[in-house]
């Protein structure tokens, strides 16, 4: 230390501090193990999958590939999606806007779509405490924007799903994402309650996930890429072993020969019949149900809508807009390249 203090800092190298060794040794790099591996480079933290799968070699799970055929029986397919954005912040809470979209199809043709919203929710301590959430979770929701958005989305989507499940008969309800209970659900509109309605009214509910966080499922779906038509592999065992509150039966499914492998959680019917009805009644484009795609597009916020919502808030709630700064940008600046 004396030596260091005695010398001007500019004449020293990082080696004198031992920083390099310290960083290199904080984890075992194991770069030798990378040699010869097949690789996908990540982009913008997005989930990417290899176009032709990881291959059979990488899979330790030997599921049975089951093919299925489209069933054209005029079953109505109703897909639900939603999106939520944070609109504003006050000293006491935050304002969120949510939009839901329902798209329907029958016999391979789009039927109708419904746009719901935007609807505004102002989350404060009092509204969080009124929302049946556990105290700690309610506090977390107020602190974490992502959790708050999740709360608003889950509640809105479940509300729509519940109404569909209790009004439709013998239909297929498509949901974006997996079917699993959420800590944000309210007791009257939980997945469990919705599944009860589905069973009572002979509806099938299918949760379609575009990507899965579980690598074993990704690996297990490899054989599906070799099948020249709609097929699925039952992965319920893997899913149940990884998640506790999942609902329905989980499969990795390919809806057409050119599409990607999706995860489907099926509730209220057999896999063959449910997937056959889906493929037979919903136009499948690039391996994805068109109703879900449409529901996604009609539920996303456009720039114009955000502008209009701001105008609505300013005009109707007697609020005062404060000048705000992007702290990160102010402090760090930006170097344009």
């Amino acid at each position, binding site marked *: 230390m004396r030596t260091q203090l005695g010398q001007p800092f500019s004449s020293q190298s990082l080696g004198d501090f031992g920083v390099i060794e310290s960083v290199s040794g904080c984890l075992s790099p194991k770069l030798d193990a990378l040699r010869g591996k097949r690789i996908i480079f990540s982009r913008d933290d997005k989930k990417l999958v290899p176009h032709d799968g990881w291959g059979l070699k990488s899979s330790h799970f030997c599921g049975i590939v089951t093919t299925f055929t489209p069933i054209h029986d005029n079953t109505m397919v109703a897909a639900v999606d939603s999106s939520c954005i944070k609109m504003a912040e006050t000293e006491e809470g935050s304002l969120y806007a949510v939009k839901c979209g329902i*798209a*329907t*199809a029958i016999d391979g043709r*789009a*039927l*109708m*779509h*419904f*746009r*719901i*919203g*935007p*609807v*505004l929710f102002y989350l404060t301590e009092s509204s969080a405490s009124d929302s049946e959430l556990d105290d700690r979770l309610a506090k977390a929701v107020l602190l974490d924007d992502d959790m708050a958005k999740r709360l608003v989305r889950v509640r809105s989507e479940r509300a729509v799903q519940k109404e569909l499940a209790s009004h439709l008969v013998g239909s297929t309800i498509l949901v974006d994402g997996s079917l699993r209970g959420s800590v944000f659900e309210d007791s009257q509109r939980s997945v469990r309650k919705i599944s009860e309605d589905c069973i009572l009214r002979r509806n099938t509910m299918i949760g379609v996930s575009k990507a899965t966080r579980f690598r074993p499922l990704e690996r297990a779906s490899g054989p599906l890429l070799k099948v020249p038509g709609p097929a699925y592999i039952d992965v319920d065992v893997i899913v149940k072993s990884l998640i506790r509150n999942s609902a329905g039966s989980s499969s990795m499914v390919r809806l057409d020969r050119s599409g990607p492998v999706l995860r489907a959680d099926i509730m209220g019917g057999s896999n063959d019949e449910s997937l056959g009805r889906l493929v037979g009644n919903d136009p499948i484009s690039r391996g994805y149900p*068109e109703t879900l795609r*449409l529901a996604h*597009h*009609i539920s996303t916020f*456009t*720039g*114009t*809508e955000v*502008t*209009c*919502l701001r*105008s*609505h808030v300013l005009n109707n709630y007697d609020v005062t807009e404060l000048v705000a700064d992007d702290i990160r940008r102010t402090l760090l600046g930006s170097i344009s390249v």
Partner: protein
Amino acid sequence: MKILSKDGNELLLLAMKEDSASKGDYMLVEDRRRSMIVQIYDEEYLSSQSLVEDIVKEEVVNASSVESLHDPLNIGILSKLIRDARVFRAKLRASVNGEGRLSSEVAWLPSRVESKVKRLSMAEIDSFLGRTGVFPIPIGKAGDDEDFEIYAEDLDGKLSIITGKKESGKSHLSKVLVKTLVQHGAFVIVFDLNNEYSGLGWNKDRTPSAIHNRIHLLDPGKSLRFKLDYCGKAAISGMLKNALDMPAASLREFFRIWDWLENKQSLGIDAIGNAVNTWNINELVRDALVSRYHVIQSSRLFADDSPGFRFENVISKSGAAGAAIIVSMGNVPPTVRRMVVELVLSKVVDLLERQAIPPIFLFAEEAHLYIRETYWEDIITRMRHFGIYTTFITNQPDAISDGIYRQVDNIFLFNFTNDSDLDKISKVSLVDNDTIRSIVRTLPQRQCLAIGKAVCDLPMVVKVAAADVLTMGETKKFFSKKTS
């Protein structure tokens, strides 16, 4: 309306659906004690990449299935308002200082937040400009369907051009001007190429018009015939040289004959014919004289046996009532047309020089077809000082030279869609290129952009009112529409 931005002398104004304004309208931008007068010259949608994407996305979605909307906050209405929002492009024309006086100082920047933008009525514009006169010429409507008039004083001593593409309403406006000038007691000579001004004497219902008795139709060779001595040596010289291209040597011989006959007091068209045949001259010169003599004779413009037409007689008979002398040239061959124009202009200049007649308003339709190139300059410079105030009416703006455009006091611009015509006009007119291109290109029939002294140099879009005179000179058609 709100100000969006200012770039040079251009202001962008944001307008919502209910803000109505049209191209050519004047707006007053008031910022505390100062104001700015701007003119809207173009209109477009408020557009951004995201807005376009939204519209396309919605159309694609709605094309794929039927939509049902539940929008509790009515955000959709606001969204539609944004989609219908427009941007008006406006040019700064003047500013108004605290005392309400116009100035050209427009370098200051009005507040985007506090400025109020309001539409200016014609009365307000006139009051700012101090545009008044004694002899109004109502030519139609402007602004928010308000009556619009120019003043005869704005054409008096001025050079004006009425131009626009075929059937855009040029002749219509010129008839309104001629009729009103005569009503105000002015004397107007019209070179009528299509024999369409004869209808000025009649209303649409075929009853005599207010200037019925003040219309003098001159048909070359019939009602328009001159005595040689009335025309004078100078006018005949101009006619032979410019309309009949007589060489200088032949012209000299012709005037020897003229002088000889004049001394004998036997100057006449037959006498000239006899003299040309018997005069002791070179045969080539004789041939030149004979051929010109035959053209002159066949034109029947000169008469020995009748008193001939005299401008001063018509004008003195009319007194203070004014008159329109319409020279119908529709059925006349091009050479005779040029002869007529040379004779008329030379004689009128001669009369004006001698102050035998008051100043004359000249309306020349497609003048490039009968006025020689070198004469143009003469018309706009020399003749102007004698008292011939010309209005050219043409559908070929490039037929008029830049020199003339630089002297022009008023331009009435009707619709042009052709780029080269617009280029020509925008280069030489008194208004910026953007205004000309945007406004003139979209002008409907019978609407014009008035530029110049008549509108105190603030360009105005005018809907020319329907003239209550009989339409003449319509194109004869083989296939006529069934009227029943």
